[in-house]
């Protein structure tokens, strides 16, 4: 455990460094140094992060001890005192072969993160070398009308992040292009809204897994004769279908609940039906549409992991599942790394959407 504590300290140092960087930025913004704001904006969040890591560390240690005691006890009952002593010594020595399998400590997770980054560097270098090696050959193959040789090695963790982002982006676009137009049409007509309401209410709560299976049934048949990447198609369509409901409902609501004053203006100005939709109804429902899109994006990112996991599509979801199946010594900590990365990316996506929302809508007070 000693080692982990020292690593923990370096981690703290790094966090302190980040805090200093944040502080310098803060200072640039307001030349007057305000202790109260500094406390509230830098020290308090920092303290809460440290508290979180501390609690996690203590919890992981406790779980580690329970697991270790159980292992020693089992050795004692199965093979006698000598084996138990050997097991205790083995655990204490930190040997990989006998480590208890439980919640990893923050230090282990940090270590795994570094391992994954190092692994990524190795794989990228490998990829680059491969590209250089095959460049001439590929050119020749293309000129001959053949497919170029592509790198088929294992994707790194970072590559998988981008694959996942790619899938989410495709799914989000699909959701956008389905939900917004349908939402507008449904919102404009009471009759259509009543006609489709049951469908929305019934399909909205359906689990991502079921959507995946449904999409699988259809896509499997549709792509029978093609050699395209059906796993990607299945996962992005499922993500889109799961996530589009928030946008659909919000768009329909935004369009149907436009302020009556604005409708009166449209009537008095005698705008045509299309002008009325594009110049009055849509702008006034933009804030709600964007709220829906924000929810859609975060739902898409959330269900993506489950869907990738089941669809065998490469990405963060399958990374997590493979690591779990793998059961290697550092698998658990890699899963936790993935968890944090998923969380951080999700947070960033939400922030991006919020920024866009504030840029396009007249309603400037949208917040998290």
């Amino acid at each position, binding site marked *: 455990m000693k080692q982990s504590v020292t690593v923990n300290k370096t981690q703290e140092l790094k966090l302190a460094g980040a805090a200093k960087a944040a502080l310098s930025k803060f200072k640039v913004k307001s030349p007057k140094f305000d202790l109260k704001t500094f406390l509230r904006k830098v020290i308090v969040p920092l303290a809460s992060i440290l508290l979180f890591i501390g609690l996690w560390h203590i919890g992981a240690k406790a779980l580690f001890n329970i697991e270790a005691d159980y292992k020693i006890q089992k050795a004692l009952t199965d093979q006698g005192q000598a084996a138990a002593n050997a097991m205790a010594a083995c655990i204490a020595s930190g040997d990989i072969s006998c480590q208890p399998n439980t919640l990893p400590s923050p230090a282990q997770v940090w270590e795994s993160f570094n391992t994954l980054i190092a692994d990524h560097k190795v794989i990228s270098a490998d990829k680059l070398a491969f590209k250089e090696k095959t460049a001439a050959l590929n050119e020749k193959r293309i000129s001959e009308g053949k497919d170029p040789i592509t790198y088929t090695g294992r994707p790194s963790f970072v590559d998988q992040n981008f694959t996942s982002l790619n899938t989410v982006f495709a799914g989000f676009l699909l959701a956008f292009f389905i939900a917004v137009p349908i939402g507008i049409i449904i919102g404009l007509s009471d009759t259509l809204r009543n006609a489709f309401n049951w469908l929305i209410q019934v399909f909205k709560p359906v689990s991502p897994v079921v959507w995946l299976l449904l999409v699988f049934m259809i896509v499997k048949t549709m792509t029978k004769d093609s050699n395209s990447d059906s796993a990607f198609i299945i996962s992005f369509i499922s993500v889109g279908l799961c996530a589009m409901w928030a946008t659909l409902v919000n768009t329909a609501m935004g369009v149907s609940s436009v302020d009556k*004053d*604005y409708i*009166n*203006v449209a*009537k*008095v*100005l*005698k*705008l045509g039906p299309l*002008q009325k939709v594009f*110049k*009055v109804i849509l*702008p*006034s429902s*933009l804030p709600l549409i964007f709220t829906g899109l924000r929810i859609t994006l975060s739902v898409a990112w959330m269900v993506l992991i489950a869907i990738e996991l089941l669809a065998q599509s490469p990405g963060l979801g399958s990374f997590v599942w493979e690591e779990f199946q793998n059961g290697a010594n550092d698998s658990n900590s890699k899963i936790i790394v993935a968890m944090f990365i998923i969380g951080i990316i999700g947070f960033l996506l939400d922030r991006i959407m919020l920024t866009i929302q504030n840029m396009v*809508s*007249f*309603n400037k007070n949208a917040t998290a």
Partner: protein
Amino acid sequence: MAYLELKNVNKTYGEGKSATEVLTDINLTIEEGEFVAIVGFTGSGKTTLVNLINGLLKPTSGEVLFKGEPVVDTSHERGVIFQNYSLLPWLSVGQNVAMAVKVAFPNEKKAFIKERVAQYVEMVNLSPAINKRPKELSGGMRQRVAVARALAMNPEMIIMDEPLGALDALTRGNLQDEILKIWSKDKRTALLITNDVDEGIYMADRIIPLRPGPRATLGPEFKIDIERPRDKTELNDNPVYKKTRNAIIEYLMGIGEERKAISKKLYELPDLAPKSFVA
């Protein structure tokens, strides 16, 4: 032929048992170039009356005739200034006005539209704020934008639904003068709905009280025989002004008393005495 004519107009909201009769037996004639004010209590159905005239609502029975033709829809000939400004918040001042100009002059070039927008924004003294959003403006400025938007469409008749109701006294006075100036410049027909008798007397040729609803109907008209341009400060000493004002207020108060008399029901209060904490 009267310019605008309302014949036995009734307006009922809802149907069957839940129907509420808002306006009953409204008869009104406005001649071309006239400035008519309708004065009434809040909730007496003034906005309903306005919407019937501008074409947003249809009468349940009776006829609304504009230049002899029944009103079936809104028209660019009748410009409306709404009570709550109704500016589109995502457009700037200029864009709000431009939207109206574009639909009123669909065949004109961009330069014409731009010039007309600038001209009308200038007219209401908002040129420095032409690129601002309604949210950044004060209530008076917003109402001026609404005035500019309505007038930029070059309507033959201006219908104003308590346009100055939400403004403070000073801004109100200024805008009254501005509206009068515009009205007298090319003698458009104007209908002003207001709850302020003084405003009506200062601005209008005729004042017609609206008896409070439900079943609201128009009362007898009061002619304002005061020469234009009227001066606000001198108006207070004008005997005609005093007489007319008193007559209108007396009439309105009379309605108020009548209303009270109707609701002179006795309510029996429960026999409760406050608890004594001393004993």
